[in-house]
Protein backbone atom coordinates (compact mmCIF):
# COMPACT_ATOMS: atom_id res chain seq x y z
CA UNK A 1 0.00 0.00 0.00
CA UNK A 2 1.16 3.48 -0.75
CA UNK A 3 2.50 5.32 2.31
CA UNK A 4 0.68 8.45 1.20
CA UNK A 5 -2.69 6.77 1.03
CA UNK A 6 -4.76 7.56 4.09
CA UNK A 7 -6.42 5.22 6.55
CA UNK A 8 -9.91 4.57 5.21
CA UNK A 9 -12.94 6.04 6.90
CA UNK A 10 -14.66 3.81 9.39
CA UNK A 11 -17.85 4.02 11.37
CA UNK A 12 -18.51 2.19 14.60
CA UNK A 13 -21.48 1.96 16.91
CA UNK A 14 -20.22 1.15 20.38
CA UNK A 15 -23.69 1.61 21.89
CA UNK A 16 -27.06 2.07 20.14
CA UNK A 17 -26.97 5.75 21.14
CA UNK A 18 -23.51 6.44 19.83
CA UNK A 19 -21.72 6.61 16.49
CA UNK A 20 -17.94 6.87 16.40
CA UNK A 21 -16.41 8.14 13.17
CA UNK A 22 -12.72 7.83 12.40
CA UNK A 23 -10.20 7.73 9.60
CA UNK A 24 -10.01 9.84 6.46
CA UNK A 25 -13.38 11.03 5.27
CA UNK A 26 -12.07 11.96 1.86
CA UNK A 27 -12.99 10.97 -1.68
CA UNK A 28 -10.24 8.36 -1.59
CA UNK A 29 -11.16 7.06 1.85
CA UNK A 30 -14.95 6.86 2.00
CA UNK A 31 -15.40 4.03 -0.49
CA UNK A 32 -15.96 1.56 2.35
CA UNK A 33 -18.47 3.46 4.42
CA UNK A 34 -20.62 5.05 1.72
CA UNK A 35 -22.85 1.98 1.47
CA UNK A 36 -22.90 1.50 5.25
CA UNK A 37 -24.27 4.97 5.81
CA UNK A 38 -27.30 4.34 3.64
CA UNK A 39 -28.62 1.55 5.86
CA UNK A 40 -27.78 3.14 9.18
CA UNK A 41 -30.98 3.50 11.17
CA UNK A 42 -32.26 4.25 14.62
CA UNK A 43 -35.79 4.23 16.04
CA UNK A 44 -37.65 7.50 15.58
CA UNK A 45 -37.45 9.77 18.59
CA UNK A 46 -34.20 8.22 19.74
CA UNK A 47 -31.12 10.21 20.55
CA UNK A 48 -27.88 9.63 18.72
CA UNK A 49 -24.52 11.12 19.58
CA UNK A 50 -22.08 11.25 16.68
CA UNK A 51 -18.49 11.48 17.77
CA UNK A 52 -16.25 13.08 15.13
CA UNK A 53 -13.16 13.46 17.30
CA UNK A 54 -11.19 10.80 15.46
CA UNK A 55 -11.85 12.01 11.93
CA UNK A 56 -8.36 12.66 10.60
CA UNK A 57 -9.24 14.30 7.34
CA UNK A 58 -12.40 15.61 5.79
CA UNK A 59 -12.94 16.85 2.27
CA UNK A 60 -16.02 17.93 0.40
CA UNK A 61 -16.89 14.39 -0.66
CA UNK A 62 -16.69 13.18 2.94
CA UNK A 63 -18.53 16.22 4.21
CA UNK A 64 -21.24 15.63 1.62
CA UNK A 65 -21.99 12.08 2.74
CA UNK A 66 -21.77 13.08 6.38
CA UNK A 67 -24.16 15.93 5.74
CA UNK A 68 -26.52 13.58 3.92
CA UNK A 69 -26.43 11.14 6.82
CA UNK A 70 -27.17 13.80 9.41
CA UNK A 71 -29.97 15.31 7.36
CA UNK A 72 -31.56 11.95 6.74
CA UNK A 73 -31.43 10.94 10.39
CA UNK A 74 -32.88 14.26 11.46
CA UNK A 75 -35.64 13.92 8.90
CA UNK A 76 -36.45 10.55 10.38
CA UNK A 77 -37.07 12.22 13.70
CA UNK A 78 -33.85 11.27 15.44
CA UNK A 79 -32.17 13.84 17.65
CA UNK A 80 -28.63 13.82 16.31
CA UNK A 81 -25.82 15.48 18.20
CA UNK A 82 -22.55 15.92 16.35
CA UNK A 83 -19.73 16.61 18.72
CA UNK A 84 -15.99 16.93 19.05
CA UNK A 85 -15.51 17.68 15.36
CA UNK A 86 -12.44 19.79 14.68
CA UNK A 87 -13.43 23.41 14.08
CA UNK A 88 -12.09 23.47 10.50
CA UNK A 89 -14.04 20.32 9.69
CA UNK A 90 -17.18 21.75 11.26
CA UNK A 91 -16.82 24.81 9.03
CA UNK A 92 -16.40 22.67 5.94
CA UNK A 93 -19.47 20.66 6.87
CA UNK A 94 -21.41 23.87 7.17
CA UNK A 95 -20.18 25.14 3.78
CA UNK A 96 -21.12 21.88 2.15
CA UNK A 97 -24.53 21.97 3.81
CA UNK A 98 -25.30 25.36 2.35
CA UNK A 99 -25.01 24.09 -1.18
CA UNK A 100 -26.07 20.51 -0.79
CA UNK A 101 -29.68 21.60 -1.21
CA UNK A 102 -29.08 22.27 -4.90
CA UNK A 103 -30.80 19.48 -6.80
CA UNK A 104 -28.69 17.06 -8.71
CA UNK A 105 -29.58 16.91 -12.40
CA UNK A 106 -32.48 14.64 -13.19
CA UNK A 107 -31.47 11.39 -14.79
CA UNK A 108 -32.29 11.28 -18.48
CA UNK A 109 -34.97 8.69 -19.08
CA UNK A 110 -33.85 6.07 -21.59
CA UNK A 111 -35.55 6.41 -24.95
CA UNK A 112 -37.98 3.78 -26.19
CA UNK A 113 -36.92 1.72 -29.19
CA UNK A 114 -39.53 3.32 -31.41
CA UNK A 115 -38.39 6.84 -30.59
CA UNK A 116 -34.80 5.82 -31.28
CA UNK A 117 -35.81 4.37 -34.63
CA UNK A 118 -37.65 7.55 -35.57
CA UNK A 119 -34.75 9.69 -34.48
CA UNK A 120 -32.21 7.75 -36.53
CA UNK A 121 -34.53 7.79 -39.54
CA UNK A 122 -34.91 11.54 -39.23
CA UNK A 123 -31.13 11.91 -38.85
CA UNK A 124 -30.60 9.79 -41.96
CA UNK A 125 -33.01 11.90 -43.99
CA UNK A 126 -31.46 15.09 -42.70
CA UNK A 127 -28.04 13.78 -43.70
CA UNK A 128 -29.23 12.88 -47.18
CA UNK A 129 -30.77 16.32 -47.62
CA UNK A 130 -27.57 17.96 -46.37
CA UNK A 131 -25.48 15.90 -48.79
CA UNK A 132 -27.74 16.95 -51.63
CA UNK A 133 -27.45 20.61 -50.69
CA UNK A 134 -23.67 20.23 -50.42
CA UNK A 135 -23.58 18.80 -53.93
CA UNK A 136 -25.68 21.76 -55.06
CA UNK A 137 -23.39 24.26 -53.35
CA UNK A 138 -20.34 22.60 -54.93
CA UNK A 139 -22.02 22.77 -58.34
CA UNK A 140 -22.67 26.47 -57.85
CA UNK A 141 -19.05 26.99 -56.85
CA UNK A 142 -18.05 25.09 -59.98
CA UNK A 143 -20.29 27.31 -62.10
CA UNK A 144 -18.60 30.32 -60.52
CA UNK A 145 -15.20 28.94 -61.45
CA UNK A 146 -16.31 28.26 -65.01
CA UNK A 147 -17.55 31.84 -65.29
CA UNK A 148 -14.32 33.19 -63.77
CA UNK A 149 -11.61 30.65 -64.61
CA UNK A 150 -9.01 32.83 -62.88
CA UNK A 151 -10.59 31.91 -59.57
CA UNK A 152 -9.77 28.24 -59.93
CA UNK A 153 -7.03 27.08 -57.56
CA UNK A 154 -4.47 25.19 -59.57
CA UNK A 155 -1.89 24.78 -56.88
CA UNK A 156 -4.01 22.78 -54.40
CA UNK A 157 -5.30 20.71 -57.27
CA UNK A 158 -1.80 19.76 -58.41
CA UNK A 159 -0.86 19.05 -54.83
CA UNK A 160 -3.87 16.80 -54.44
CA UNK A 161 -3.09 14.96 -57.67
CA UNK A 162 0.29 14.14 -56.26
CA UNK A 163 -1.02 13.16 -52.82
CA UNK A 164 -4.01 11.12 -54.00
CA UNK A 165 -2.58 9.85 -57.30
CA UNK A 166 1.17 9.65 -57.54
CA UNK A 167 1.74 8.76 -53.90
CA UNK A 168 -0.86 6.00 -54.16
CA UNK A 169 0.92 4.24 -57.06
CA UNK A 170 2.83 1.70 -54.93
CA UNK A 171 -0.16 0.49 -52.93
CA UNK A 172 -2.49 0.48 -55.93
CA UNK A 173 0.11 -1.37 -58.03
CA UNK A 174 0.79 -3.99 -55.38
CA UNK A 175 -2.86 -4.68 -54.58
CA UNK A 176 -4.02 -4.90 -58.18
CA UNK A 177 -1.08 -7.16 -59.03
CA UNK A 178 -2.08 -9.47 -56.18
CA UNK A 179 -5.71 -9.32 -57.27
CA UNK A 180 -4.68 -10.42 -60.77
CA UNK A 181 -2.71 -13.29 -59.26
CA UNK A 182 -5.66 -14.38 -57.13
CA UNK A 183 -8.19 -14.26 -59.96
CA UNK A 184 -5.95 -16.26 -62.27
CA UNK A 185 -5.20 -18.76 -59.54
CA UNK A 186 -8.87 -19.28 -58.71
CA UNK A 187 -9.79 -19.63 -62.38
CA UNK A 188 -6.92 -21.94 -63.26
CA UNK A 189 -8.45 -25.07 -61.73
CA UNK A 190 -11.78 -24.70 -63.50
CA UNK A 191 -10.22 -23.87 -66.86
CA UNK A 192 -7.81 -26.79 -66.67
CA UNK A 193 -10.69 -29.22 -66.16
CA UNK A 194 -12.13 -28.28 -69.54
CA UNK A 195 -8.75 -27.90 -71.21
CA UNK A 196 -9.62 -24.25 -71.77
CA UNK A 197 -6.32 -22.95 -70.45
CA UNK A 198 -6.03 -20.17 -73.00
CA UNK A 199 -9.30 -18.60 -71.84
CA UNK A 200 -7.46 -17.39 -68.75
CA UNK A 201 -6.73 -14.30 -70.85
CA UNK A 202 -10.48 -13.67 -71.22
CA UNK A 203 -11.03 -14.20 -67.52
CA UNK A 204 -8.28 -11.89 -66.41
CA UNK A 205 -8.79 -9.28 -69.09
CA UNK A 206 -12.53 -8.86 -68.66
CA UNK A 207 -12.68 -9.13 -64.89
CA UNK A 208 -9.75 -6.83 -64.22
CA UNK A 209 -10.48 -4.20 -66.82
CA UNK A 210 -14.24 -4.04 -66.42
CA UNK A 211 -14.67 -4.56 -62.67
CA UNK A 212 -11.77 -5.13 -60.37
CA UNK A 213 -9.33 -2.43 -61.34
CA UNK A 214 -11.76 0.53 -61.04
CA UNK A 215 -13.25 -0.89 -57.87
CA UNK A 216 -10.01 -1.62 -56.05
CA UNK A 217 -8.65 1.80 -56.99
CA UNK A 218 -11.80 3.49 -55.72
CA UNK A 219 -11.70 1.59 -52.44
CA UNK A 220 -8.04 2.36 -51.87
CA UNK A 221 -8.50 6.03 -52.64
CA UNK A 222 -11.60 6.24 -50.45
CA UNK A 223 -9.60 4.83 -47.55
CA UNK A 224 -6.50 6.85 -48.25
CA UNK A 225 -7.66 10.20 -49.54
CA UNK A 226 -11.37 10.44 -48.72
CA UNK A 227 -10.58 9.98 -45.04
CA UNK A 228 -7.76 12.50 -45.25
CA UNK A 229 -10.12 15.07 -46.79
CA UNK A 230 -12.68 14.56 -44.04
CA UNK A 231 -10.05 14.78 -41.30
CA UNK A 232 -8.40 17.85 -42.79
CA UNK A 233 -11.59 19.82 -43.28
CA UNK A 234 -13.00 18.58 -39.97
CA UNK A 235 -9.96 19.74 -38.03
CA UNK A 236 -10.03 23.06 -39.85
CA UNK A 237 -13.62 23.63 -38.90
CA UNK A 238 -12.93 22.73 -35.27
CA UNK A 239 -10.09 25.25 -35.13
CA UNK A 240 -12.26 27.91 -36.81
CA UNK A 241 -10.04 27.99 -39.89
CA UNK A 242 -13.07 27.55 -42.13
CA UNK A 243 -14.77 30.53 -40.49
CA UNK A 244 -11.56 32.54 -40.84
CA UNK A 245 -11.49 31.67 -44.53
CA UNK A 246 -15.04 32.91 -45.01
CA UNK A 247 -14.31 36.19 -43.25
CA UNK A 248 -11.26 36.72 -45.43
CA UNK A 249 -13.51 36.45 -48.45
CA UNK A 250 -12.21 33.05 -49.57
CA UNK A 251 -14.93 30.56 -50.40
CA UNK A 252 -14.03 27.30 -48.63
CA UNK A 253 -15.74 25.33 -51.37
CA UNK A 254 -13.50 26.91 -54.00
CA UNK A 255 -10.32 26.45 -52.05
CA UNK A 256 -10.94 23.11 -50.37
CA UNK A 257 -13.51 21.17 -52.33
CA UNK A 258 -13.25 21.90 -56.06
CA UNK A 259 -9.50 21.26 -56.29
CA UNK A 260 -9.99 17.94 -54.54
CA UNK A 261 -12.80 16.89 -56.85
CA UNK A 262 -10.79 17.78 -59.94
CA UNK A 263 -7.67 16.18 -58.57
CA UNK A 264 -9.50 12.89 -58.09
CA UNK A 265 -11.23 13.26 -61.45
CA UNK A 266 -7.79 13.26 -63.05
CA UNK A 267 -6.00 10.88 -60.72
CA UNK A 268 -8.57 8.10 -60.48
CA UNK A 269 -8.78 7.19 -64.20
CA UNK A 270 -5.00 7.23 -64.41
CA UNK A 271 -4.70 5.01 -61.36
CA UNK A 272 -7.26 2.70 -62.93
CA UNK A 273 -5.14 2.30 -66.06
CA UNK A 274 -2.16 1.58 -63.88
CA UNK A 275 -4.16 -1.00 -61.93
CA UNK A 276 -5.32 -2.56 -65.24
CA UNK A 277 -1.74 -3.06 -66.34
CA UNK A 278 -0.49 -4.46 -63.05
CA UNK A 279 -3.53 -6.66 -62.58
CA UNK A 280 -3.21 -8.22 -66.02
CA UNK A 281 0.50 -8.64 -65.45
CA UNK A 282 -0.19 -10.54 -62.22
CA UNK A 283 -2.63 -12.74 -64.11
CA UNK A 284 -0.09 -13.39 -66.85
CA UNK A 285 2.48 -14.59 -64.38
CA UNK A 286 -0.02 -16.95 -62.80
CA UNK A 287 -1.18 -18.15 -66.22
CA UNK A 288 2.36 -19.16 -67.13
CA UNK A 289 3.08 -20.78 -63.78
CA UNK A 290 -0.19 -22.66 -63.36
CA UNK A 291 -1.57 -23.20 -66.85
CA UNK A 292 1.51 -23.14 -69.03
CA UNK A 293 0.19 -20.22 -71.07
CA UNK A 294 3.22 -18.18 -72.17
CA UNK A 295 3.30 -14.39 -72.27
CA UNK A 296 3.14 -14.25 -76.11
CA UNK A 297 0.26 -16.66 -76.27
CA UNK A 298 -1.55 -14.79 -73.51
CA UNK A 299 -1.17 -11.41 -75.21
CA UNK A 300 -2.34 -12.68 -78.59
CA UNK A 301 -5.47 -14.11 -76.99
CA UNK A 302 -5.87 -11.01 -74.80
CA UNK A 303 -6.13 -8.70 -77.83
CA UNK A 304 -8.81 -10.91 -79.38
CA UNK A 305 -10.80 -11.43 -76.18
CA UNK A 306 -10.83 -7.97 -74.74
CA UNK A 307 -12.34 -5.24 -76.84
CA UNK A 308 -11.51 -1.58 -76.32
CA UNK A 309 -15.10 -1.24 -75.08
CA UNK A 310 -14.34 -3.41 -72.04
CA UNK A 311 -11.36 -1.21 -71.29
CA UNK A 312 -13.36 2.00 -71.68
CA UNK A 313 -16.23 0.64 -69.59
CA UNK A 314 -13.81 0.26 -66.70
CA UNK A 315 -12.19 3.64 -67.19
CA UNK A 316 -15.46 5.54 -67.46
CA UNK A 317 -16.52 4.42 -63.99
CA UNK A 318 -13.47 6.00 -62.42
CA UNK A 319 -14.59 9.66 -62.70
CA UNK A 320 -17.93 8.82 -61.11
CA UNK A 321 -16.18 7.09 -58.21
CA UNK A 322 -13.85 10.07 -57.96
CA UNK A 323 -16.70 12.50 -57.51
CA UNK A 324 -18.36 10.26 -54.92
CA UNK A 325 -15.18 9.94 -52.86
CA UNK A 326 -14.23 13.60 -52.95
CA UNK A 327 -17.73 14.90 -52.30
CA UNK A 328 -18.46 12.51 -49.44
CA UNK A 329 -15.05 13.13 -47.84
CA UNK A 330 -15.41 16.90 -47.97
CA UNK A 331 -19.07 16.79 -46.95
CA UNK A 332 -18.33 14.79 -43.81
CA UNK A 333 -15.45 17.13 -43.02
CA UNK A 334 -17.77 20.12 -43.10
CA UNK A 335 -20.26 18.36 -40.85
CA UNK A 336 -17.73 18.16 -38.02
CA UNK A 337 -19.05 19.91 -34.95
CA UNK A 338 -17.35 20.20 -31.61
CA UNK A 339 -14.03 18.58 -30.95
CA UNK A 340 -11.58 15.81 -31.64
CA UNK A 341 -14.18 13.16 -31.10
CA UNK A 342 -16.34 14.49 -33.88
CA UNK A 343 -13.41 14.59 -36.32
CA UNK A 344 -12.87 10.89 -35.77
CA UNK A 345 -16.53 10.08 -36.17
CA UNK A 346 -16.94 12.05 -39.39
CA UNK A 347 -13.77 10.56 -40.84
CA UNK A 348 -15.05 7.07 -40.22
CA UNK A 349 -18.40 8.00 -41.71
CA UNK A 350 -16.72 9.41 -44.81
CA UNK A 351 -14.95 6.12 -45.53
CA UNK A 352 -18.00 3.99 -44.79
CA UNK A 353 -20.32 6.10 -46.92
CA UNK A 354 -17.88 6.52 -49.78
CA UNK A 355 -17.25 2.78 -49.92
CA UNK A 356 -20.97 2.07 -49.78
CA UNK A 357 -21.83 4.57 -52.48
CA UNK A 358 -18.99 3.40 -54.73
CA UNK A 359 -20.27 -0.17 -54.61
CA UNK A 360 -23.86 0.94 -55.18
CA UNK A 361 -22.72 3.00 -58.17
CA UNK A 362 -20.77 0.01 -59.49
CA UNK A 363 -23.91 -2.13 -59.28
CA UNK A 364 -25.89 0.52 -61.14
CA UNK A 365 -23.20 0.61 -63.82
CA UNK A 366 -23.46 -3.15 -64.23
CA UNK A 367 -27.21 -2.91 -64.74
CA UNK A 368 -26.87 -0.02 -67.16
CA UNK A 369 -24.15 -1.69 -69.22
CA UNK A 370 -26.03 -4.94 -69.46
CA UNK A 371 -29.11 -3.03 -70.63
CA UNK A 372 -26.95 -1.32 -73.24
CA UNK A 373 -25.29 -4.60 -74.28
CA UNK A 374 -21.83 -3.25 -73.66
Amino acid sequence: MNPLSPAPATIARPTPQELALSGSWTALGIGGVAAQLGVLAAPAGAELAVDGARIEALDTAGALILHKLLTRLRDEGIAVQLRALRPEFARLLEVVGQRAASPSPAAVAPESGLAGLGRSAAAGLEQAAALLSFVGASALALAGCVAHPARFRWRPMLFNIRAAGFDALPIVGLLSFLLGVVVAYQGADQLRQYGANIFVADLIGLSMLREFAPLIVALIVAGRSGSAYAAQIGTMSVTEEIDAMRTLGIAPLELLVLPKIFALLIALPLLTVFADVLGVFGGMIMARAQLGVGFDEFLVRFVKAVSPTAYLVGICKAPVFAVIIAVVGCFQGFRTKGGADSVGRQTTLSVVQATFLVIVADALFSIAFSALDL
Partner: protein
Amino acid sequence: MQAAARAQEPVVEVSKVSTRFGEHVVHSGVDLEVRRAEIFAVIGGSGSGKSTLLRELILLQRPDSGSIRVLGADLQGLGDDEALALRQRWGVMFQHGGLFGSLTVHENVGLPLREHTGLEDPLIDEIAAWKLAMAGLEPEAGARYPSELSGGMLKRASLARALALDPELLFLDEPTAGLDPESAAGVDQLVRHLRDQFGLTIVMITHDLDLLWQVADRVAVLAEGTVQGVGSMAELARMDVPAVRKFFDGPRGRAPSKPR
Protein backbone atom coordinates in the same frame (compact mmCIF):
# COMPACT_ATOMS: atom_id res chain seq x y z
CA MET B 1 -0.80 15.92 13.41
CA GLN B 2 2.32 17.91 12.58
CA ALA B 3 0.10 20.73 11.45
CA ALA B 4 2.43 23.42 12.71
CA ALA B 5 5.42 21.94 10.93
CA ARG B 6 3.43 21.54 7.74
CA ALA B 7 2.26 25.12 7.78
CA GLN B 8 5.88 26.25 7.80
CA GLU B 9 7.05 24.06 4.98
CA PRO B 10 6.69 25.67 1.56
CA VAL B 11 4.19 23.98 -0.73
CA VAL B 12 6.19 24.59 -3.86
CA GLU B 13 9.93 25.03 -3.78
CA VAL B 14 11.79 25.69 -7.00
CA SER B 15 15.51 26.08 -6.86
CA LYS B 16 18.06 26.77 -9.55
CA VAL B 17 15.88 25.39 -12.31
CA SER B 18 17.30 25.65 -15.81
CA THR B 19 15.54 24.63 -18.97
CA ARG B 20 16.50 24.91 -22.56
CA PHE B 21 15.02 23.83 -25.83
CA GLY B 22 17.98 23.12 -28.04
CA GLU B 23 19.88 26.40 -28.19
CA HIS B 24 17.05 28.43 -26.75
CA VAL B 25 17.44 29.01 -23.01
CA VAL B 26 14.10 29.32 -21.24
CA HIS B 27 15.14 29.29 -17.59
CA SER B 28 18.59 29.90 -16.21
CA GLY B 29 18.30 29.49 -12.48
CA VAL B 30 14.72 30.08 -11.37
CA ASP B 31 14.12 30.18 -7.60
CA LEU B 32 10.64 30.33 -6.11
CA GLU B 33 8.82 29.46 -2.95
CA VAL B 34 5.08 29.23 -2.49
CA ARG B 35 3.72 29.12 1.04
CA ARG B 36 0.72 27.24 2.28
CA ALA B 37 -2.68 28.83 1.67
CA GLU B 38 -1.40 31.73 -0.36
CA ILE B 39 -2.40 32.87 -3.80
CA PHE B 40 0.76 33.08 -5.79
CA ALA B 41 0.91 34.50 -9.29
CA VAL B 42 3.63 34.21 -11.91
CA ILE B 43 3.75 36.94 -14.51
CA GLY B 44 6.09 37.66 -17.38
CA GLY B 45 6.04 38.60 -21.04
CA SER B 46 5.32 36.15 -23.82
CA GLY B 47 8.10 33.61 -24.11
CA SER B 48 9.42 34.29 -20.62
CA GLY B 49 8.88 30.64 -19.70
CA LYS B 50 5.84 30.94 -17.44
CA SER B 51 4.00 28.11 -19.09
CA THR B 52 7.12 25.95 -19.19
CA LEU B 53 7.57 26.51 -15.48
CA LEU B 54 3.98 25.52 -14.86
CA ARG B 55 4.41 22.38 -16.95
CA GLU B 56 7.47 21.51 -14.90
CA LEU B 57 5.57 21.98 -11.67
CA ILE B 58 2.78 19.64 -12.73
CA LEU B 59 5.06 16.87 -13.97
CA LEU B 60 4.43 17.36 -17.67
CA GLN B 61 8.01 18.33 -18.37
CA ARG B 62 11.36 17.97 -16.69
CA PRO B 63 13.83 20.77 -16.18
CA ASP B 64 17.38 20.24 -17.43
CA SER B 65 18.82 20.97 -14.02
CA GLY B 66 17.79 22.22 -10.61
CA SER B 67 15.25 20.83 -8.23
CA ILE B 68 11.53 21.25 -7.74
CA ARG B 69 9.70 20.15 -4.61
CA VAL B 70 5.92 20.15 -4.58
CA LEU B 71 3.94 19.22 -1.45
CA GLY B 72 7.15 17.96 0.11
CA ALA B 73 8.06 15.58 -2.70
CA ASP B 74 11.06 16.00 -4.95
CA LEU B 75 9.81 15.81 -8.52
CA GLN B 76 13.13 14.51 -9.75
CA GLY B 77 13.25 10.74 -9.68
CA LEU B 78 9.66 10.26 -8.61
CA GLY B 79 8.30 6.74 -9.10
CA ASP B 80 5.07 6.13 -11.02
CA ASP B 81 3.06 5.39 -7.89
CA GLU B 82 4.35 8.41 -6.05
CA ALA B 83 3.69 10.58 -9.07
CA LEU B 84 0.11 9.33 -9.21
CA ALA B 85 -0.40 9.96 -5.51
CA LEU B 86 1.03 13.43 -5.90
CA ARG B 87 -1.13 14.20 -8.91
CA GLN B 88 -4.20 13.38 -6.86
CA ARG B 89 -3.21 16.04 -4.37
CA TRP B 90 -3.20 18.88 -6.85
CA GLY B 91 -5.63 20.11 -9.45
CA VAL B 92 -4.85 21.84 -12.72
CA MET B 93 -7.06 24.16 -14.69
CA PHE B 94 -5.77 24.54 -18.21
CA GLN B 95 -5.98 27.70 -20.23
CA HIS B 96 -8.40 26.27 -22.75
CA GLY B 97 -10.15 24.08 -20.22
CA GLY B 98 -8.72 20.76 -21.31
CA LEU B 99 -12.17 19.25 -20.89
CA PHE B 100 -12.81 16.03 -22.77
CA GLY B 101 -15.07 16.77 -25.72
CA SER B 102 -16.62 13.33 -25.76
CA LEU B 103 -17.93 13.63 -22.20
CA THR B 104 -20.53 15.96 -20.76
CA VAL B 105 -19.39 18.55 -18.26
CA HIS B 106 -20.86 16.48 -15.48
CA GLU B 107 -18.95 13.38 -16.61
CA ASN B 108 -15.78 15.42 -16.96
CA VAL B 109 -16.00 16.49 -13.34
CA GLY B 110 -16.83 12.99 -12.15
CA LEU B 111 -14.01 11.40 -14.15
CA PRO B 112 -11.21 11.77 -11.54
CA LEU B 113 -13.53 10.35 -8.90
CA ARG B 114 -14.50 7.43 -11.11
CA GLU B 115 -10.85 6.73 -11.94
CA HIS B 116 -9.31 7.01 -8.52
CA THR B 117 -11.95 6.23 -5.93
CA GLY B 118 -14.15 3.24 -5.38
CA LEU B 119 -17.29 5.29 -4.92
CA GLU B 120 -20.70 4.33 -6.27
CA ASP B 121 -21.95 6.15 -9.35
CA PRO B 122 -24.86 7.96 -7.67
CA LEU B 123 -22.53 9.39 -5.05
CA ILE B 124 -20.03 10.45 -7.69
CA ASP B 125 -22.81 12.19 -9.59
CA GLU B 126 -23.83 13.97 -6.43
CA ILE B 127 -20.29 15.09 -5.67
CA ALA B 128 -19.83 16.25 -9.27
CA ALA B 129 -23.08 18.23 -9.10
CA TRP B 130 -21.90 19.81 -5.88
CA LYS B 131 -18.54 20.79 -7.38
CA LEU B 132 -20.26 22.32 -10.39
CA ALA B 133 -22.50 24.33 -8.10
CA MET B 134 -19.49 25.45 -6.12
CA ALA B 135 -17.78 26.57 -9.31
CA GLY B 136 -20.87 28.64 -10.02
CA LEU B 137 -22.48 26.61 -12.80
CA GLU B 138 -26.17 25.91 -13.13
CA PRO B 139 -27.14 22.23 -12.85
CA GLU B 140 -28.36 22.35 -16.48
CA ALA B 141 -24.84 23.15 -17.67
CA GLY B 142 -23.67 19.78 -16.39
CA ALA B 143 -25.62 17.88 -19.01
CA ARG B 144 -24.04 19.82 -21.86
CA TYR B 145 -20.88 19.07 -23.79
CA PRO B 146 -17.86 21.36 -23.49
CA SER B 147 -18.29 22.53 -27.08
CA GLU B 148 -21.69 23.95 -26.16
CA LEU B 149 -20.40 26.14 -23.32
CA SER B 150 -19.32 29.76 -23.32
CA GLY B 151 -15.76 30.67 -22.41
CA GLY B 152 -16.59 31.62 -18.84
CA MET B 153 -18.56 28.45 -18.26
CA LEU B 154 -15.70 26.38 -19.69
CA LYS B 155 -13.31 27.90 -17.18
CA ARG B 156 -15.69 27.19 -14.35
CA ALA B 157 -16.26 23.62 -15.50
CA SER B 158 -12.53 23.10 -15.81
CA LEU B 159 -12.08 24.46 -12.32
CA ALA B 160 -14.76 22.11 -11.01
CA ARG B 161 -12.88 19.17 -12.52
CA ALA B 162 -9.59 20.37 -11.04
CA LEU B 163 -11.30 20.42 -7.65
CA ALA B 164 -12.89 16.99 -8.03
CA LEU B 165 -10.52 15.23 -5.64
CA ASP B 166 -10.31 18.14 -3.19
CA PRO B 167 -6.70 19.00 -3.91
CA GLU B 168 -4.52 20.94 -1.51
CA LEU B 169 -2.85 22.78 -4.33
CA LEU B 170 -4.43 24.30 -7.38
CA PHE B 171 -2.65 25.40 -10.54
CA LEU B 172 -4.44 27.87 -12.77
CA ASP B 173 -3.18 28.73 -16.24
CA GLU B 174 -4.58 32.09 -17.32
CA PRO B 175 -7.83 31.72 -15.37
CA THR B 176 -9.35 34.90 -16.79
CA ALA B 177 -7.89 35.01 -20.30
CA GLY B 178 -10.55 35.51 -22.91
CA LEU B 179 -13.30 36.33 -20.44
CA ASP B 180 -15.50 39.39 -20.34
CA PRO B 181 -14.93 41.63 -17.30
CA GLU B 182 -17.98 40.32 -15.50
CA SER B 183 -17.02 36.65 -15.86
CA ALA B 184 -13.45 37.54 -14.97
CA ALA B 185 -14.64 39.24 -11.80
CA GLY B 186 -16.58 36.07 -11.02
CA VAL B 187 -13.39 34.04 -11.38
CA ASP B 188 -11.54 36.52 -9.12
CA GLN B 189 -14.11 35.97 -6.47
CA LEU B 190 -14.14 32.23 -6.89
CA VAL B 191 -10.37 31.96 -6.50
CA ARG B 192 -10.39 34.02 -3.33
CA HIS B 193 -13.35 32.10 -1.99
CA LEU B 194 -11.57 28.78 -2.55
CA ARG B 195 -8.54 29.89 -0.64
CA ASP B 196 -10.54 31.38 2.23
CA GLN B 197 -12.95 28.53 2.61
CA PHE B 198 -10.81 25.48 1.92
CA GLY B 199 -7.35 26.77 2.68
CA LEU B 200 -6.17 25.91 -0.83
CA THR B 201 -2.78 26.97 -2.04
CA ILE B 202 -3.15 28.51 -5.48
CA VAL B 203 -0.45 29.02 -8.07
CA MET B 204 -1.53 30.86 -11.18
CA ILE B 205 -0.18 32.30 -14.37
CA THR B 206 -1.94 35.43 -15.45
CA HIS B 207 -1.70 38.73 -17.24
CA ASP B 208 -4.85 40.09 -15.72
CA LEU B 209 -3.94 43.16 -13.68
CA ASP B 210 -7.24 43.18 -11.83
CA LEU B 211 -6.71 39.62 -10.75
CA LEU B 212 -3.17 40.44 -9.68
CA TRP B 213 -4.08 43.52 -7.69
CA GLN B 214 -7.15 42.13 -6.03
CA VAL B 215 -6.48 38.46 -5.49
CA ALA B 216 -2.79 37.59 -5.56
CA ASP B 217 -0.94 37.63 -2.24
CA ARG B 218 2.45 37.48 -3.86
CA VAL B 219 3.59 37.79 -7.43
CA ALA B 220 6.79 36.64 -9.11
CA VAL B 221 8.01 38.38 -12.23
CA LEU B 222 9.74 36.08 -14.66
CA ALA B 223 12.04 37.57 -17.30
CA GLU B 224 15.31 36.70 -18.98
CA GLY B 225 15.20 33.21 -17.54
CA THR B 226 15.13 34.19 -13.89
CA VAL B 227 12.82 35.59 -11.27
CA GLN B 228 13.32 39.34 -11.33
CA GLY B 229 11.24 40.12 -8.29
CA VAL B 230 8.81 38.61 -5.82
CA GLY B 231 6.38 40.38 -3.57
CA SER B 232 2.90 41.75 -3.28
CA MET B 233 1.81 43.98 -6.14
CA ALA B 234 2.34 47.04 -3.98
CA GLU B 235 5.89 45.94 -3.21
CA LEU B 236 6.61 45.16 -6.83
CA ALA B 237 5.33 48.56 -7.86
CA ARG B 238 8.01 50.15 -5.72
CA MET B 239 10.80 47.98 -7.11
CA ASP B 240 13.36 49.46 -9.39
CA VAL B 241 14.13 46.46 -11.60
CA PRO B 242 13.63 47.21 -15.31
CA ALA B 243 11.85 43.94 -16.06
CA VAL B 244 9.42 44.61 -13.21
CA ARG B 245 8.92 48.26 -14.10
CA LYS B 246 7.72 47.27 -17.56
CA PHE B 247 4.53 45.92 -16.03
CA PHE B 248 3.77 49.11 -14.19
CA ASP B 249 5.08 51.77 -16.56
CA GLY B 250 3.71 50.34 -19.78
CA PRO B 251 0.71 51.96 -21.42
CA ARG B 252 -1.61 49.46 -19.74
CA GLY B 253 0.21 49.40 -16.43
CA ARG B 254 -1.73 50.52 -13.43
CA ALA B 255 -0.18 52.72 -10.81
CA PRO B 256 -0.47 51.38 -7.27
CA SER B 257 -2.22 54.54 -6.14
CA LYS B 258 -5.41 53.83 -8.01
CA PRO B 259 -6.44 50.24 -7.62
CA ARG B 260 -10.15 49.92 -8.17
